[in-house]
């Protein structure tokens, strides 16, 4: 592995971590789409910044773009406050307009400059090692590494300094206010960090990948844990993993690094989405199916408890009276028998003692919804696990 490859992967990984941290909070605060808006609307900020500084490498450019990002958030909120349109419409109106202005400005006044819209959307990760910082004659490494490194450092400092505030204001804005933190300051602080990160990162990886790096790792992590610290750690891990795996995929396919990193992020999410233990698609579908069977079981047991006449207890009666399909009544009967709740004699169904006890408990649980009543059944039944 040559050093340029190492440097690209390092930049990609640092970017992934720098994006995953604000991304986690954006996802938790239901503001994920704001990152999309920011990433598009920093374009006019970049162009205007370029007109003023006349230098594509000026740090002021980042500042200008970041301010445009925060401005987007403010604008969206202002439009939303007029109550003329909903929040999502406000987002959808603001960023295409700003992006259009950026595109037109570039086309009109900056056509001869290397400020390519394709590069804005995709970034040029492959070229980052060639743009280096020198101190005198000493090579200090790629510029992007320094930019994203310092952004990450600031983000980490902010995260550790304000972790408690961020946590409280994210999950309970009312409590945060009553404790004396201003959710507004935290909100704009987070927005500024997200904005600066977007600008700093998109130079290297492009606007779309920034959005993916912010949202996808956090979304995957959210499906696996409900602990904020674990979620942050997992999101960073997923980000770094996709960054490195994506790099090698791009290497193999000879295609865009940013594109393959995003694809890896998507694959990671797809796997988590399908197979996450408690919240994945398969787990949810399985649980829903079990719960449906168990609801049927309880209905069936209640039915047995209410009727003593033999014709109401006949196995065939299940299909006719309660109107279940054959397969389902079989599953329900099997489940009840397995749990020793019923006995079947001459095609007549009887509740066992355990079954009667269980039915009484279940009714009481349903009526009072008090935990503890059903504690000992929880291991066997999805229905009572919450």
């Amino acid at each position: 592995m040559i050093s340029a490859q190492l440097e690209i992967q390092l930049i990609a990984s640092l970017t992934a971590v720098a994006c995953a941290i604000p991304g986690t909070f954006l996802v938790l605060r239901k503001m994920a789409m704001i990152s999309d808006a920011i990433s598009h609307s920093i374009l006019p900020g970049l162009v205007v910044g370029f007109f003023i500084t006349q230098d594509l490498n000026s740090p002021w450019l980042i500042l200008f773009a970041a301010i445009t990002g925060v401005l987007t958030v403010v604008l969206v909120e202002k439009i939303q406050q007029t109550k003329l349109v909903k929040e999502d419409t406000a987002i959808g109106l603001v960023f295409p307009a700003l992006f259009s202005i950026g595109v037109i400005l570039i086309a009109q006044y900056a056509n001869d400059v290397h400020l390519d819209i394709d590069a804005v959307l995709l970034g040029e990760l492959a070229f980052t090692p060639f743009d280096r910082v020198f101190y005198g004659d000493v090579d200090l490494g790629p510029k992007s590494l320094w930019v994203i490194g310092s952004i990450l450092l600031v983000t980490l400092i902010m995260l550790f300094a304000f972790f408690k505030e961020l946590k409280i204001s994210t999950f309970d804005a009312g409590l945060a206010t009553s404790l004396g933190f201003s959710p507004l300051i935290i909100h704009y602080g987070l927005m500024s960090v997200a904005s600066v990160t977007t600008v700093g990162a998109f130079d290297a990886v492009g606007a779309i990948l920034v959005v993916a790096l912010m949202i996808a790792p956090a979304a995957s992590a959210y499906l696996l844990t409900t602990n904020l610290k674990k979620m942050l750690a997992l999101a960073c891990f997923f980000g770094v993993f996709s960054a490195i795996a994506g790099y090698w995929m791009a290497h193999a396919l000879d295609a865009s690094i940013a594109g393959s990193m995003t694809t890896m992020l998507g694959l990671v999410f797809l796997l988590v989405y399908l197979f996450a233990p408690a919240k994945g698609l398969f787990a949810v579908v399985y649980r829903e199916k079990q719960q449906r069977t168990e609801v049927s079981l309880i209905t069936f047991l209640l039915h047995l408890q209410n009727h003593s006449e033999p014709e109401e207890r006949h196995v065939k009666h299940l299909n006719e009276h309660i109107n279940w399909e054959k397969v389902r009544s079989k599953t329900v009967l099997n489940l009840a028998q397995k749990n020793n709740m019923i006995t079947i004699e001459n095609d007549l169904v009887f509740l066992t003692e355990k079954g009667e006890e269980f039915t009484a408990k279940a009714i009481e649980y349903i009526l009072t919804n008090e935990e503890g009543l059903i504690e000992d059944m929880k291991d066997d039944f999805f229905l009572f696990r919450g």
Partner: protein
Amino acid sequence: MGITEYIQLVFSDYTLRTITLGTAVLGAVTGMLGSFAVLRKQSLLGDAISHAALPGIALAFLFTGSKDTNILLIGALISGLIGTFWIRGITSKTHLKSDTALGLILSVFFGFGMLLLTFIQKQPNANQAGLDKYLFGQAATLVESDVWLMTIVTGICLIVLLLFWKEFKILLFDKDYAQTLGFNTKIIDVLITSFIVLAIVLGLQTVGVVLMSAMLLAPAAAARQWTNSLGMMVVLAAILGAFAGIIGTGISATQNNLSTGPVIVLVASVFVLFSFIFSPKRGLLFKQIRLIQNRNDLELQKTLTFMYHIVEDHDDISHPHAIRILNNFRGYSKKGLRKLIDKNYVVVKGEMWSMTPKGFEVAKNLYNQNGKDD
């Protein structure tokens, strides 16, 4: 070039006529369907779908090797639909919220699409040039058959809209009610979402992936400000969308170096801004004017009540009082006093004012309505 000259050119020049017609039809159909997206709080769905369509275009090219617009658009349609239904799967089966699902699908699909595009570019002997027009759109590449396709789709949309108008409307405003009435809400839902996807895919060639969502939203958001009726809103949005297309094309055709997509989006944004400010019922301007009017009215009434309290103590209601004593009252202003005189509630002689019988009656009733005294 003057406007009349330009209009003549639109009719005489084949390319310009095609593009103008194309953008107008596109604006109309997106405005129409956008109304539903906006009202269903799916505004950003358009953004997600348009990005999600990109890998479909690339894959369609990879598999068929053809650059025929229709084949590429079918690919876009399929991947747009997959994206849409995955978004729905994420929001319905997991606890992730719709914003996360939208952002995720949008960026991941787009990234995958870019991966495929760069992969295609590296292929030898592929005539891949021109695929990237779907990124930002190139209205100039519209040909007559494209416009026909748009027109046909618009026609189908219109027929379906009219046929299922009642169902769409009910689903939009009261889904549960629609369900209890026995409508299959799922099918109606899928139907309208599919049409939104279709409209977006159609627009990709003209305004591109990135700006397509604005085409969907802006005309609808502008139309929403002028009416509270769904029918009116859909018609208005279609008209506004069409005009955004025509005007945008006009501006970009008469200037150098202006791509059509961004200009159309900006024109539509101007429509929105104008509607936000000047719409008579909901607009910010009239809202502010009404606010000031109400405040003035209230102050006038307060001043009158204050005067009434002074006058009340005297047997003769037209007994004059010094204007000076009103100065302590917060709601009092010279303008207000003049208004009261104009309404013939008080008369002023020199430095003194006195209440007329009419003013006294009004003030008394005002007082009763306020219900402060009982």
